[in-house]
């Protein structure tokens, strides 16, 4: 059955709102605005980080449950880097599966090392969203990242870490 015009418009609105929700994730991180970041997630949200190429970075791997745990995790990840507000995370290629008051998204990410100018990683984000009276929120966020070989030396100089940890 062909969707009605109104149903199409609502699906388009959902896509735009979800796109901004995803963009807010990295606008908040890059500007270190943790209050903004917090509002993006449901209180019992979970986040999961996996390496796509067996390269451990900053002990970021694993699953973290609850909004506060997610914020602590992100803060730990960005702690070595102070770019005075310059962004390093760039999202693109969003696709969505809408299902009433829930939705799933897939997003590509690339991240840039501002010291060397080299691409740090190619990332694939898969998220689950819930519609609330305040708008769409994230309830689950999965990050898969391939860290490039070329950036390792520059990153290690900025923050040595124990890969065996």
């Amino acid at each position: 059955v062909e969707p009605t015009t109104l149903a199409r418009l609502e699906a388009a609105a959902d896509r735009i709102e979800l796109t901004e929700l995803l963009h807010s994730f990295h606008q908040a991180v890059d500007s270190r605005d943790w209050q903004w970041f917090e509002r993006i997630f449901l209180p019992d949200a979970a986040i999961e980080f996996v390496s796509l190429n067996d390269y451990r970075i900053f002990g970021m791997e694993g699953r973290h449950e609850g909004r506060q745990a997610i914020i602590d995790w992100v803060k730990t990840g960005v702690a070595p880097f102070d770019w005075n507000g310059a962004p390093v995370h760039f999202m693109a290629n969003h696709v969505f599966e809408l299902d009433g008051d829930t939705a799933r998204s897939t997003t590509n990410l690339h991240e840039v090392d501002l010291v060397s100018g080299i691409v740090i990683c190619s990332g694939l984000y898969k998220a689950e969203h819930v519609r609330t009276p305040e708008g769409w929120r994230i309830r689950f966020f999965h990050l898969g990242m391939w860290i490039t070989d070329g950036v390792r030396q520059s990153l290690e100089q900025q923050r040595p870490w124990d890969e065996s940890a």
Partner: protein
Amino acid sequence: MASGSRSSSNDLGTKVPEPVTDDERVRELFDRMRIVENLARYHHSIDAKEWEQLASLFTEDATAEYRSLNDISLFGLEGTYTGRDTIIDWIRTGQEPFQFNGAPTHFMTNHVIEFSEDGATSKSSFNDVDLPTGLTIGTGIYTCTHIRVADDWKIESMRLEQRLCDSVISSIVAQRAALDQKSTEGGTG
């Protein structure tokens, strides 16, 4: 809630305003798309060196501001520029050394937009790529205000806060120097 009572909070991206009627929700939907597309046109025009199209995106009395986020100054391009023509001259001067036959080097994403009584404010992340080395030149945040003009939107103010990568400076300086040398030899018109 009347149509004029939209949130005008400066708290970018914290919530999506909630228009009451379907008509208003649809209008805002299209406004968001139009504003994002104008921001895309901005860099498409620059990469294609289509200066007339670039000018058409701004109001006549628009302002542009460039600020460095680290201590590297960018060839004296910092400051505030007032008026559409001044802005276009400023961008042309900045882009002059880079001739890549239409290949894009500016990438903008992560847009968030907030509407107010007067128009809209957008915040976008951008990065540009140095095609000789393949390295990132720098990254920046664009904060723009937009006003509705007839059926379209125009940019009335644009602020770019940019940080250049430490490593790429020498490549950029070399390209700028090559241009300067060419001008000295009378090679450009």
